[in-house]
């Protein structure tokens, strides 16, 4: 994808599109850091990552290129201990640095886990700063679990109320609904991973749509008009398919997003933004077909903002992204509050049924990469805010360098444990044990880091061998996870080798660092709902089941109880 984007940048310079350097993704607090990590792992193209946290340990281990520590004097590198007041003050302390980092940004995505100190306290302020700097602010917020108690819930709600007013768009995801993302049997890390992925997925969809210029372009203005409903809930769906029937399949996949409720919710939408992206084989007929069947789901009076783009990296795939918004009161199940910034009293409606963006269980199935080394010694460059602009410039001129940087700064202790990371965030103390380096960092002044940073950026050779090997590990793992998508493998060249090696080597992967260009198509694949959700529920074998034929499998401890034990045991 990166190679593509380079092309697109060259060829579309004349178009009015948003340069990558003006999109920033901010991860705020521990939960935000985890989301950021997922985004970094997906090697998001065309956006810069910025981590903000009070806790220096979490911050040090974060993948983001830019990092700003909040409350250097106030919390002294510790967390806020769940106190939003403290988070707020810490944020105010670092306000100038954050403002400097946000200068000139067109779109700012703010990812935060509400309920804690840093997330709840600082998020409204970050949103305000970003707005003041003239950015379009989209907030992705997770709400705490019920079991975290009423106090945290209230903190989260308070913060959410403020964000409703301050942000352009607000998407909330309730942790309590996390169970719907994964099967009951799957581990907690997968549940958290799925939530992070979902958020990463939606951010990517928006970025892709806004950044990548298309044949029929849709831009930020279209996005804003699609979301221009007061106190609304975001409808979001995205699907990929290939093969003969890919147009209708992709649409079906997109509509299967829980946020769309099988397309039923689109019935009331006023404005729907549809973005198609396909390989060079995308035909007008397909587009017609797809839009025709989409018409059945949207009201005739709806304003359909249509965009299409050709991305050679898509190969035989066709992807469709639907974005719309519904007024919250028109929904029986109150959902993600996606709210355009409108001067409205912040009366937060109870968001019991929070946003669930695209959920693709199939790909959760694939994503099984959880075991990885936890304690890896790395030098993670702390980047001072002053560095930001220069780095941004550099990346614009040399997209390769930017990508390289993302990958390089990747190897850090949190990578391996990313899926569980959200969980770990709650136990930061434990986390700290896996990072022997961090205390040192606390003592060092920022200036020191800024001297290290450029060298790392520009001279990859400086990287410790260990680092690079781990970065390969990660990218290889990423690739492996998406291995099932064959068509794109063809495009991405050698990674099949990486995959095989990776499976054997696991931890001690010594394959040469895979170029970031290879990672990019993988990002595309992530969207891939080509393996529909029932995959995980397929019967263990196709044995006839007599009178229980066609029923939901009755699986206990990995055995389908509807099959005779007599036959099952004989086989094994």
């Amino acid at each position, binding site marked *: 994808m990166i190679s593509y984007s380079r092309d697109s940048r060259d060829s579309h310079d004349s178009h009015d599109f948003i340069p990558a350097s003006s999109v920033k993704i901010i991860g705020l607090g521990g939960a935000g850091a985890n989301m950021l990590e997922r985004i970094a792992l997906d090697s998001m193209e065309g956006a810069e990552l910025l981590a903000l946290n009070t806790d220096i340990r979490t911050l040090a281990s974060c993948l983001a290129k830019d990092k700003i520590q909040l409350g250097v004097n106030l919390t002294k590198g510790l967390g806020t201990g769940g106190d939003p007041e403290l988070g707020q003050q810490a944020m105010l302390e670092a306000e100038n640095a954050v403002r400097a980092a946000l200068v000139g940004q067109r779109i700012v995505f703010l990812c935060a886990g509400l309920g804690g100190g840093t997330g709840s306290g600082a998020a409204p302020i970050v949103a305000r700063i970003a707005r003041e700097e003239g950015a379009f602010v989209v907030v992705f917020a997770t709400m705490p679990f019920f079991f975290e108690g009423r106090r945290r819930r209230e903190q989260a709600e308070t913060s959410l109320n403020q964000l409703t007013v301050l942000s352009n768009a607000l998407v909330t995801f309730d942790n309590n609904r996390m169970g719907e993302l994964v099967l009951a049997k799957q581990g907690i890390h997968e549940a958290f991973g799925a939530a992070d992925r979902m958020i990463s997925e939606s951010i990517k969809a928006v970025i892709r749509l806004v950044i990548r210029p298309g044949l029929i372009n849709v831009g930020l203005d279209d996005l804003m008009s699609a979301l221009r409903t007061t106190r609304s809930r975001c409808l979001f769906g995205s699907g990929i398919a290939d093969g003969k029937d890919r147009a209708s399949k992709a649409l079906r996949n997109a509509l299967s997003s829980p946020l769309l409720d099988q397309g039923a919710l689109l019935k009331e939408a006023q404005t729907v933004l549809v973005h198609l992206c396909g390989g060079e084989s995308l035909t007008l007929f397909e587009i017609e077909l797809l839009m025709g069947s989409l018409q059945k789901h949207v009201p005739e009076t709806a304003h359909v903002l249509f965009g299409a783009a050709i991305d050679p990296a898509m190969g035989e795939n066709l992807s469709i992204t639907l974005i719309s918004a519904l007024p919250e009161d028109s929904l029986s199940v109150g959902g993600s509050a996606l709210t355009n910034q409108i001067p409205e009293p912040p009366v937060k409606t109870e968001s019991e049924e929070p946003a669930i963006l695209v959920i693709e269980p199939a790909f959760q199935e694939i994503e099984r990469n959880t075991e990885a080394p936890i304690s890896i010694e790395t030098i993670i460059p702390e980047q001072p805010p002053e560095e930001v602009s220069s780095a941004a410039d550099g990346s614009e001129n040399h997209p390769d360098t930017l990508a390289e940087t993302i990958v390089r700064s990747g190897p850090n202790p949190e990578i391996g444990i990313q899926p569980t990371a959200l969980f770990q965030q709650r136990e930061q103390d434990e986390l700290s044990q896996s990072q022997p380096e961090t205390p040192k960092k606390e003592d060092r002044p920022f200036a020191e880091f800024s001297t290290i940073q450029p060298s790392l950026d520009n001279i990859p050779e400086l990287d410790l061998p260990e680092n690079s090997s781990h970065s390969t590990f990660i990218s290889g793992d990423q690739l492996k996870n998406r291995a099932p998508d064959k068509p794109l493998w063809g495009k991405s060249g050698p990674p099949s080798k990486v995959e095989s090696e990776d499976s054997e080597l696991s931890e001690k992967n010594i394959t040469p660092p895979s170029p970031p260009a290879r990672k990019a198509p993988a990002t595309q694949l992530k969207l891939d709902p080509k393996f529909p959700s029932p995959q995980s529920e397929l019967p263990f074998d196709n044995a006839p089941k007599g*009178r*229980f034929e066609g029923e939901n499998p009755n699986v206990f401890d990995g055995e389908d109880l509807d099959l005779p034990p007599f036959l099952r045991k004989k086989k094994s």
Partner: protein
Amino acid sequence: MARRTKIHVGLEIGTSKTCIVVGEVKPDSAVKILGIGVTKSAGVRKGGISDFVQARACLKDALAKAEDASDVEIGSVYLSVTGAHMQGVNNRGTFRLPDNQPNILPEHLTEVCNIARDVHYPQDHVCLHTIIRKYLVDGLEQSASPIGLFAKTVEADFHVVHGIGNRIQNSIKLVRECPMEVDDIVFAPIATAQMALDREQRLRGALLIDIGGGTTDYVLYLDGAIAASGCIPVGGDHVTNDIHLVTGLPFSKAEKLKILEGNASSDPALSVGYAKLTDESGFADVEVKRAILNEVIRQRLEETLKLVHERLPKGAVENIGAGVFLTGGTSLMNGFSELAFDVFGRDIYRPENSSNPDSDHPSYRDPRYATAIGLIRYAQILETENTKPPGCLGKLFRLFWPFGR
């Protein structure tokens, strides 16, 4: 004590049969069965309703039969529910008394109970029962109410049964459409236990396993309190289905073969030769090797019992003093107690195979009605608990009241 005769109705919508039992609770708390209405169920799979219309027709039929037999107009029922979604969990709530408050007040107890009841279950689940198991005062067990005792902390152990709300709602809807009211919903094995286990057995520790047509429900009592309960979606239907799948016989024949010839014990002496079914004319119709037939049955039932065993708390089976009580239609399978003994290693109690299944005199002890009759017992207990003891005036009044007590 209930002071006057009261009529309760128990309804069990089982996988194989829908059963309504009308019972009369006498003032001396004896239960008299007035009538039973039973129909074969249709549209019920593994304890859950799969075909609403059919299930409703069956229920109406059973209702008519029960009203006929008992000569009572049935307005409301106690309903038993089951299904794989039902789960029983134990939870302990701890409450630390305020510093200036040395002994336990009723409000402290309410608080600790609320804490203990507050089990985290999936959002689509609803809580069906919260049953107090015991109180602990500063870590010491206290079976009776600890109100008034001196303590630093008071803890309560609760057993909470929860299940998917919508499925339970659908069962209620089915009953309402008949139309009858639902007095209360009871998790099936808990109802069955009211009937099948007496107080002493519960105190000594007893495991009740109700193997019905589509589900196997179990409830474990230790020290007089519920220690575990749950449901495994396997039952007699699965045995028949297994025979069908392995031998290729049609369901009706497989069912017949299972009942007449099947044996679940692993006794090799019983697995010699062929099991034969004869048709009306007396000719041999079906021939199956006994070794295969018995093995199919045994493996299925053994697996089911082992699943139950696995789901009991660790070390619980060793604490079962009274034994394992089997009930439900499938427990009538030949050789089943031997198999159960192999799995649990405890005394096995099995209901008598009632000699005449079509008897007009429904027996108390008939395992097929255990759940529905248990519901009546449950209703009676509920009634007793809810009846407030008469106040001073009431007692005085009753001294002079010539009729009854």
